């Protein structure tokens, strides 16, 4: 008990004695979970923006036809089951009966069709799926029918997608909103109801348990699959931007969970016996050095390859999470370590002896003639900022004619979109990190695209990568996918669309009386107070 509460309690002893017994037996505070999220929730539309915080908000409020388990297998959520017909060209999904939106309306197949249609306009894997779809229609109130031009083996995986705008189901009237406009109403059928009257962006977001929610009866709980059983009546997100303040609030018990404490704060929190610090996801985030293929100097493939001997993934990761090697991975390729497609094909240039001198030799052999290069990076986002600092030191040591431009994230993102050469405000190199889910497979792996002008900033044109990606979508089984993944990595290590600079665990801190948290990211079913 907090001392100040004890003092207050002393003053009000008489009143306490008069309280009904049940009020003492079931303190309301125990049924409320207070969490400091990784970022402020600004947009409430998880299709309109790809911000992870909005995705997490989506998982509170909305449900999906399929969830993804921790082995990356789709499992039914709102779906009761599905039937594949006509050699895979017709897939009919049946909804569970009795599903209801928060406004009391029944969830119908038409709602799902409208939601998926909107999602397919924005989500990268949804866009891919759309190219396979001849028709998507509702057959009665409970059947959703995909008519495909050709079989799409990853259909259910796409419907269970975890990151980058998951296909959340909304009422048809809301889902008909232009995908490039924000929805104006938050009505889902998920385990929590959003409380708009208490929403104060930048300060507080409140959710209440949805008493009408009926968890799927099948599967075991992992990641977004299995029954979503909720143990709190109310969840409050408290936006606290100052890490020290958030840590202090966790230590005093003012909050229960601090989603992403920075490394220096983690060390402080591990010393508190009431707080547990652990990886929020057993899978790591992946850091990358992105190179601009449009202009000198890195439009020169040999020069891109020359950087390999100088890259020490351990150095980059130590800057992000500290020196403890249990918190990061090196020898990382293009897929998230620990996932089915991760492999060691063609990784020797990154795993052999590290040598700045060797890199300099290769730079000379590649014909580097002191052309100017510009490294851009943010100062206000922890991991990219730390990697940028290491990268800045590295390019100076390598003897690049380097201009280091640091700014806030908003400015960096805008500058990153520039396709101009360096002398006209463009850029040559940047560092950023992606969530484990982004690099699990080629579907949403943007730095691995080779589609030139349509690619992620850096704009590499690597037709072979695109061919392999298309082949992966049609691969019939995991073994075939893994073969293609090895080929993809070989091409990536040759063409160098980017250089992996390691992977790191994201740590979370919570009060010790919380148990059964679902691993992956900030999910609020399963977790309970002991």
């Amino acid at each position, binding site marked *: 008990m907090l001392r*100040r509460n004890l003092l207050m309690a002393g003053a009000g002893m008489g009143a306490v004695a008069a309280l009904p017994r049940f009020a003492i037996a079931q303190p309301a505070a125990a049924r409320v979970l207070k969490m400091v999220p990784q970022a402020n929730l600004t947009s409430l539309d998880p299709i309109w923006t790809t911000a992870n915080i909005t995705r997490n908000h989506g998982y509170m409020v909305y449900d999906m036809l399929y969830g993804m388990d921790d082995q990356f297998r789709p499992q039914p959520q709102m779906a009761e089951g599905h039937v594949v017909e006509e050699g895979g060209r017709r897939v009919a999904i049946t909804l569970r009966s009795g599903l209801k939106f928060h406004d009391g309306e029944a969830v119908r197949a038409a709602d799902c069709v409208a939601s998926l249609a909107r999602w397919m306009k924005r989500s990268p894997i949804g866009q891919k799926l759309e190219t396979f779809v001849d028709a998507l229609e509702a057959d009665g109130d409970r059947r959703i029918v995909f008519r495909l031009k050709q079989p799409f083996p990853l259909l259910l995986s796409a419907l269970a997608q975890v990151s980058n705008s998951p296909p959340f189901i909304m009422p048809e009237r809301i889902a008909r909103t232009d995908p490039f406009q924000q929805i104006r109403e938050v009505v889902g059928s998920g385990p929590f109801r959003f409380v708009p009257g208490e929403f104060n962006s930048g300060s507080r977001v409140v959710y209440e348990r949805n008493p009408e929610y009926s968890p799927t009866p099948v599967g075991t709980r992992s990641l977004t699959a299995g029954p979503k059983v909720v143990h709190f009546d109310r969840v409050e997100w408290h936006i*606290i*931007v100052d890490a020290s303040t958030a840590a202090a609030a966790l230590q005093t018990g*003012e909050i229960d969970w601090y989603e992403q404490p920075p490394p220096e704060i983690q060390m402080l929190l591990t010393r508190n016996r009431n707080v547990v610090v652990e990886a929020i996801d057993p899978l790591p985030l992946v850091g990358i050095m992105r190179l601009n293929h449009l202009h000198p100097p890195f439009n020169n493939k040999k020069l891109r390859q020359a950087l390999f001997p100088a890259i020490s993934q351990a150095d980059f990761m130590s800057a992000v999470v500290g020196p403890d090697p249990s918190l990061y991975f090196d020898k990382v390729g293009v897929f998230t370590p620990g996932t089915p497609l991760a492999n060691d094909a063609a990784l020797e240039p990154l795993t052999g002896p590290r040598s700045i001198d060797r890199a300099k030799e290769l730079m000379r052999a590649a014909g580097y003639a002191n052309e100017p290069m510009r490294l851009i990076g943010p100062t206000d986002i922890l991991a990219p900022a730390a990697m940028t600092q290491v990268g800045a030191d590295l390019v100076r040591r390598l003897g690049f004619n380097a201009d280091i431009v640091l700014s*806030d994230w*908003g*400015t960096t993102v805008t500058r990153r*979109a520039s396709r101009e050469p360096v002398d006209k405000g463009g850029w040559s190199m940047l560092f950023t990190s992606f969530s484990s889910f982004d690099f699990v497979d080629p579907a*949403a792996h943007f730095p691995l695209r080779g589609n030139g002008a349509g690619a992620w900033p850096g704009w590499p044109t690597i037709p072979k990568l695109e061919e392999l990606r298309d082949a992966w979508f049609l691969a019939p089984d995991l073994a075939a996918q893994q073969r293609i993944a090895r080929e993809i990595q070989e091409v990536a290590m040759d063409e160098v669309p980017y250089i992996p600079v390691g992977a790191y665990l994201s740590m979370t801190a919570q009060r010790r009386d919380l148990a059964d948290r679902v691993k992956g990211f900030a999910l609020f079913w399963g977790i309970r107070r002991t």
Partner: protein
Amino acid sequence: MFAYVVRRVLATIPVMAVVALFVFSLLYISPGDPAAVIAGDQATPADVERIRASLGLDRPYLVRFGAWVWDILRGDLGTSIFTNLPVATMIAQRIEPTLSLMVVTLLLAISVAVPMGVVAAWKQGTLIDRAVMAFAVLGFSVPVFVVGYLLAYFFALEWDLLPVQGYTPFARGFWPWLENLILPAIALGSVYIALIARITRATMLEVLQQDYIRTAKAKGVGQSGMLFLHALKNAAVPIVTVIGIGIALLIGGAVVTESVFAIPGLGRLTVDAILRRDYPVIQGVVLLFSFVYVLVNLAIDLVYTLFDPRIRY
């Protein structure tokens, strides 16, 4: 007097117009694109363009400025690009915490700093005077966030007497409201106390040399009566001026204090909006701050007449 007040209020219109033009132009030329931030890492250039168009950010400068001014004239501050909420609603959500913080800080600062300055002047050259001046130097020198962290460490973490963070609306009770404001007000008020205490001391020293003070002493007026009724009243005009100027300091300091103590006020709203390039929110908040500042100056001018009957408008 009434005509003067009306003239001053009317004079705020051109001031606000200049502020509006300045803020809008500054944001227009500043780097950063909210559409790129919204679209996220995976967006194609075409996606970013579509979002930019849907937000009206692709329109020419004059068209956007004209539309914004027209909306303001109709009492509409616009809609946040990110939250899709009216800017007026977002400001209304945030105004109470900031106002509360400023009022409590002002009351604390004035009630502590003015007596400190008076006593320091009265006891000029003594240990008390030196202690007050040392405190003032410390107040100026130590940044607000350092004071904030120290207070939070001792009063919240170590002694568990006050909460670390947050804000409780006044409607939920006086003590819960005040409990959350004590530490932030002390942190934010430290600079302010230092400033007012120094000015009070300096002004009082000047006033205490005046003939009428000597006359009052000769007539047998008591120490406290002489200091607080005769001297302080005549020293009040510069002190009130500094208090007015200090409100600008408070607005700036509130940004830091609100961050350290997680108070959902206008300061945080401004910083968040700037980092996201949420133009309508930035413009709305800056306009509001400018308007408040102009009104505070007017109020200060009017307060002069209370302390100095020779001042007439």
